[in-house]
């Protein structure tokens, strides 16, 4: 299972971000400490948010859960930082997800997976209004099918699913949009 999340750094962070009321609704005290003590707190705050969002998507898809706004249930930790590549883990109840993130001057992108080191294909686009077309083109190459065969429909929990010739496939993917950027991630295990 995978989830991904893109954050456009040009979109300003909430003006409330320093207030305990804001932080207490999104982050556990251990996470808040990492954010506040960092030399770039607004970046780390958004990095943690993208960890949670990516893990939420992976978790929701895995168990086909109804939508919920429960950021505090997802607890993030940075495991390693090498330049701007960050590995982390996110825990929800007894489940653990692994995250891989990249911070650039303009965006933050995170992918969460259930297993470590799984084969994933992901792409990030700027000013791309047809992300689904890009995803279909990618699946067309991977599955050797015409891209016109593909459709995305959302299930009752709003989880997007890939259909080929109107038949539900078992493909695992995740879409994300924010500001100027959009991104998809595909698990290559089923391709």
């Amino acid at each position, binding site marked *: 299972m995978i989830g991904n999340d893109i954050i456009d750094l040009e*979109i300003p962070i909430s003006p409330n971000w320093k207030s305990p009321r804001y932080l207490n*609704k999104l982050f556990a005290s251990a996470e808040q400490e990492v954010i506040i003590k960092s030399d770039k707190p607004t970046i780390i705050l958004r990095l943690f948010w993208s960890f949670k*969002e990516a893990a939420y998507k992976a978790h929701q898809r895995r168990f086909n859960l109804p939508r919920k*706004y429960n950021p505090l249930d997802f607890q993030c930790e940075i495991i390693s930082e090498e330049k701007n590549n960050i590995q982390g883990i996110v825990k929800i109840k007894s489940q653990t997800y692994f995250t891989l993130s990249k911070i650039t001057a303009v965006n933050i992108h995170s992918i969460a997976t259930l297993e470590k080191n799984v084969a994933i294909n992901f792409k990030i686009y700027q000013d791309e209004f047809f992300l689904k077309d890009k995803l279909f083109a990618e699946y067309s190459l991977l599955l050797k099918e015409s891209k016109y065969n593909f459709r995305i429909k959302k299930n009752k929990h709003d989880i997007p699913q890939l259909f080929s010739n109107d038949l539900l496939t078992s493909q695992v993917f995740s879409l994300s949009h924010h500001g100027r950027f959009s991104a998809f991630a595909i698990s290559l295990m089923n391709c």
Partner: protein
Amino acid sequence: MTDKTILEKIKNIVTPYVQRKEGLEDFSDSTDFISDLKINSANLVDVILDVEDEFNIEIDNTSMEGMLTAGDAKRIILTKMEN
């Protein structure tokens, strides 16, 4: 406060965060903050803080989990205002 007034106040609170303005045209109980109004999930917490200030209530984490539509928000506000 009537249901209609509460809904109107919720609409005013969410408006600055809405990315899909057409979604505001038929604003009702079933209006979904994320799928209809395209409010970014990171901004939902700002909506919640504004709701707390406007109605002078505290929205606990369990209530926050279920705040996905304007109707959910209205029900939570009504329950909290009774207490």
